[in-house]
């Protein structure tokens, strides 16, 4: 039995399935052709690409970042069906936009009773302080297909909806995994929507300056959808900003970058309205910007979406839309919501109370999850505060197949559609398709978390479209960054950490390799000179990793590789990747596949068999990473901070290694050879010795070569020169000059004290850079004085 035939007989198939309809015909044929084996490899390939692109879900701050989950099979919506759906979505967006203007403006709808005032005034998303908040720039809605085969709106999501970045990520992965089918299907493209969004918001900047500063405001490490937010910033060419990057002065919002403040004119916010400004809303919010609402109020800022638009998500408002469409547009509502009754209205309440057995109760202010309580209890809740509740029919959504171990498995499907306001007209346009999600298991009826399995959604071009116009050429891979590149203190610090951890991992890997070489030759020969050298180098590994060597050198080195505690090599790699994730919009897209290679999960297991092989792989990947940084990043302040981190770290690692390996008595010469090798300078030493340009003894040349000789790109002197150049590039000539003058290389007789002094000097330099460039804003204290106390 074919894969699709088996799926057709699956007992959990819904009334309507997205694969088995006419739009899914090509995909179904593809599934049968590929067979279960082919589909399973497609799923594996999709996982691999998700890993290689560094697509993740989960909040770094709570340490639950995991690879994003994407099913390789798209959901296909036919062009005609999509066009009809889009007409309904556009009408709904126009309608919501008019309602939005009214409820924050003249409130005619509330006064006339066309929209019951309690629907709006009783909703927590209605912000009384936000009169005339500006246009509803974007809209979003979750859609599901009901038993009658028609799409219906399950919920409006107009606050700060996630998923549009994931939609683009899904398209990239799936179009690569299903290359042939994708090309053959000739889809409507997604990219144009992001270009339009950027152009629209920039054109709406209040001062209409040449290159307005636009940012995507993200909760950063606190956001589960940080990837989505970072990728959106990249797609829009906006700066990704967190609360600490922005500051309010004179009632306006500024980006803290370089040494100054740059006015921000456009903010695309990805934090909930209630969190957006601790001065006006939730005082405890750490992700919002105090004064943001004031900046909007005084006209200095275009904010998408406007504060207070959450009231439009109320299911009670949704229930009023058919009447409002007639009243405001003179049209019949084309796209229905899932059947819903607002209990604040008498006839609806009577219907609800009479039929509560077969209805779900949802709070008008809640997350859309039905109340889990007995009928009597629910009845009492409605009676106590009728206007706070809606009832709806249980959702029976269509299914879509996902690739599972034993075949295709049906899952309930929800589509999130994204729309954008036109700049000069009242109409909206929509991303063709949107972001698809399926339930966590075959049994679940409710598609809840955004972290559930994702689906690409395909809208193939209609025959007429193909005949009328050739497929548009995709625009450049990435829109130009709007406005000059700005590095905020947070980003500068993160970039420096990336450079530092990449270099630390690299020098550690080299040291482990040298130690492992010695261990394999001499570990079993305790009387040999090499054994003594091994002892010194293991001591160096102990010093670098803060781990203790046991009796078995190999086990110790493997532990140093695999340890996820500070000091372990894997810890450095994890920190490297985590930091890179925080500045996605700055990193080259090529970096992710390299970073993914660094963190392959079977490292410990492989290291037991082949430690040198694993270390070589890690080194190769780290060199590839350095190569990408060197070859793909523009030499601007971003690159400068990344490089500065690497330079400081290399200088520190070299000095530390010299410090812990000095004074090795009779084996000093052999130890110096090992140190030169670990610092990638062994060949230089031998070449110089052979040509008579340097001393023959490694011990005699190590300080010269590794510290003083600026011509050696591995020397401390070279790092400091490069660091000074980096600081100049970052616009900090002061610190660069102080570094050049202050770091004197005259060697004193007491080498140990001299090395310690150099290391202390490095720490002072690093602290000076941090003070100057990475300063965070001070902690926030909310003050709120009560009355009569």
């Amino acid at each position: 039995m074919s894969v699709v035939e088996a799926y057709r007989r699956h007992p959990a198939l819904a009334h309507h399935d997205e694969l088995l309809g006419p739009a899914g015909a090509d995909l179904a044929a593809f599934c049968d052709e590929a067979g279960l084996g082919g589909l399973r490899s497609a799923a594996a390939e999709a996982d691999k690409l998700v890993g290689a692109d560094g697509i993740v879900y989960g909040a770094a701050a709570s340490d639950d970042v995991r690879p994003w989950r994407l099913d390789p099979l798209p959901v296909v919506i036919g062009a005609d069906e999509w066009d009809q759906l889009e007409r309904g979505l556009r009408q709904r967006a126009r309608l919501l936009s008019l309602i939005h203007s009214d409820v924050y403006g003249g409130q005619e709808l509330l006064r006339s009773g066309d929209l019951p005032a309690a629907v709006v005034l009783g909703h927590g998303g209605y912000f009384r302080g936000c009169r005339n908040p500006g246009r509803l720039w974007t809209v979003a809605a979750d859609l599901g297909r009901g038993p009658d085969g028609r799409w219906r709106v399950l919920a409006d999501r107009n606050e700060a909806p996630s998923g549009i970045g994931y939609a683009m990520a899904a398209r990239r992965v799936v179009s690569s995994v299903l290359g042939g089918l994708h090309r053959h299907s000739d889809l409507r493209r997604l990219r144009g929507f992001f270009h339009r969004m950027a152009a629209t918001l920039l054109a709406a900047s209040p001062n209409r300056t040449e290159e307005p500063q636009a940012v995507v405001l993200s909760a950063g490490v606190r956001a589960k959808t940080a990837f989505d937010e970072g990728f959106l910033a990249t797609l829009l060419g906006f700066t990704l900003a967190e609360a600490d990057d922005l500051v309010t002065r004179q009632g306006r919002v500024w980006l803290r970058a370089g040494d100054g403040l740059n006015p921000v004119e456009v903010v695309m916010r990805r934090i909930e309205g209630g969190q957006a400004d601790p001065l006006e809303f939730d005082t405890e919010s750490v992700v919002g910007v105090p004064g943001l609402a004031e900046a909007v109020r005084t006209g200095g800022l275009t904010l998408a979406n406007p504060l207070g638009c959450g009231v439009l998500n109320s299911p009670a408002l949704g229930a009023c839309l058919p009447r409002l469409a007639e009243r405001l547009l003179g049209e019949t509502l084309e796209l229905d919501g899932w059947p819903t009754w607002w209990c604040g209205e008498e006839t609806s309440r009577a219907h609800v109370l009479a039929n509560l057995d077969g209805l779900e109760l949802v709070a008008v202010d809640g997350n859309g999850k039905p109340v889990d309580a007995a009928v009597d209890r629910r009845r009492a809740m409605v009676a106590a505060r009728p206007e706070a509740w809606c009832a709806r029919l249980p959702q029976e959504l269509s299914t879509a197949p996902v690739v599972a171990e034993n075949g295709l498995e049906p899952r309930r499907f929800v589509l999130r559609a994204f729309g954008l306001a036109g700049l000069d007209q009242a109409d909206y346009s929509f991303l063709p398709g949107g972001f698809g999600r399926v339930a966590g298991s075959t049994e679940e009826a409710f598609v809840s978390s955004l972290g559930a399995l994702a689906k690409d959604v395909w809208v193939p071009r209609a025959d007429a479209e193909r005949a009328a116009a050739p497929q548009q050429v995709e625009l450049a891979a990435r829109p130009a960054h709007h406005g000059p590149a700005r590095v905020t203190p947070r980003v500068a610090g993160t970039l420096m950490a990336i450079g530092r951890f990449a270099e630390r991992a690299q020098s550690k890997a080299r040291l482990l390799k040298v130690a492992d070489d010695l261990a394999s030759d001499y570990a079993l020969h305790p009387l040999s000179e090499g054994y003594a050298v091994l002892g010194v180098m293991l001591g160096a590994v102990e010093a670098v990793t803060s781990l203790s060597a046991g009796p078995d050198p190999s086990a110790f080195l493997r532990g140093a590789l695999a340890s996820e505690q500070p000091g372990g090599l894997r810890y450095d790699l994890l920190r490297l990747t985590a930091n890179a994730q925080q500045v996605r919009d700055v990193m080259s897209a090529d970096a992710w596949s390299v970073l993914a290679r660094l963190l392959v999960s079977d490292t410990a297991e492989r290291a037991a068999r082949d430690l040198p092989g694993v270390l070589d792989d890690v080194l190769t990947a780290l060199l590839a990473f350095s190569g990408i940084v060197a070859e793909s990043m523009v030499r601007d302040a971003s690159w400068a901070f990344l490089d500065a981190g690497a330079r400081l770290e290399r200088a520190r690692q070299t000095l530390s290694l010299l410090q812990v390996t000095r004074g090795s008595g009779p084996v000093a010469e052999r130890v110096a050879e090992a140190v030169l090798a670990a610092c990638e300078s062994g060949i230089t030493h031998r070449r110089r010795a052979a040509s008579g340009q340097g001393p023959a003894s490694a011990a005699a040349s190590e300080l010269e070569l590794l510290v003083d000789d600026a011509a050696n790109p591995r020397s401390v002197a070279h790092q400091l020169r490069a660091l000074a150049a980096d600081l100049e590039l970052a616009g900090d000539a002061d610190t660069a000059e102080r570094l050049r003058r202050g770091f004197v290389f005259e060697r004193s007789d007491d080498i140990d004290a001299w090395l310690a002094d150099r290391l202390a000097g490095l720490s002072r330099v690093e602290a000076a850079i941090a003070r100057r460039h990475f300063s965070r804003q001070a902690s926030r204290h909310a003050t709120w004085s009560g009355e009569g106390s």
Partner: protein
Amino acid sequence: MRYHVGHVTRYAYDDAVEACYNRAYLTPRDTPVQTVLEHRITASPALAHLADHLDGYGNTATYLEIVPGDARELSISAESVVEVSRVAPDATALDRWTVAEVAAKARQVLDKVEHTDFTLPSPLAMLAPGAYARGALPDDSGLGLGLTGLLDQVASDFSYRPGATSVRSTLDDLLAARAGVCQDFAHLVIGVLRAAGLPARYVSGYLETVAPPGQPKRRGADASHAWAQVWTPDGWLDLDPTNHRFADHGYITTAWGRDFSDVSPLRGIVLTESETSTLDVFVDVTPLEG
């Protein structure tokens, strides 16, 4: 009567303050019984920015920025001169309507937005049905009797105790503690009035510091004060549950809203690494001659 109102809020920290942002309702408003003659807001260190706007209720809301440099102490001062002509109502005259009649009339007469806004439960004045004073405002009671009864009941059920509650306290907290301050009692009365279908507002303002001779010392006079307003066919009527009385000319109105969260006198975000903080409020309301 003409009054001078001084309202000083002082923050002190043990480390430098980088910036201080405030949202203030410190400007008394004009009402049918009140005229604001003079007003100004100053700060130390000096204000970096000040901007006023009228909120949805017609109150003056002020946005303030202070960028103090190295200062560890900040203060914000508001000074006003206000003329008040309010007289306490004749409660028996209010008995010409029943509670139910006033509720019905409010629905007819008031603008739908205003009626709904001040009749729906609001975040800090959310009273579960039957949680308190069920019998104080029966539908068929005269309004004056009902309101007097409500004031009596609150006075006998609760004690005035600064510190018993906080700015975020809900009515459930108050009902559990049986003690609170003026904003709690105002919220409670508002909750009861709304449950009876009567539109009710929260008023933030000031109370004459020294009571006229022969009257007891007033509670809440050394800070900003809060009380409730209920709608009547004669207009909005001020009642002060904290002092067990209807308001007269000694009450100066700053702003009104649904509850404290709409019109709190001063809330702020202060950027500092300080470990400790103190907040002191000084209010002085002095009658002016002539």
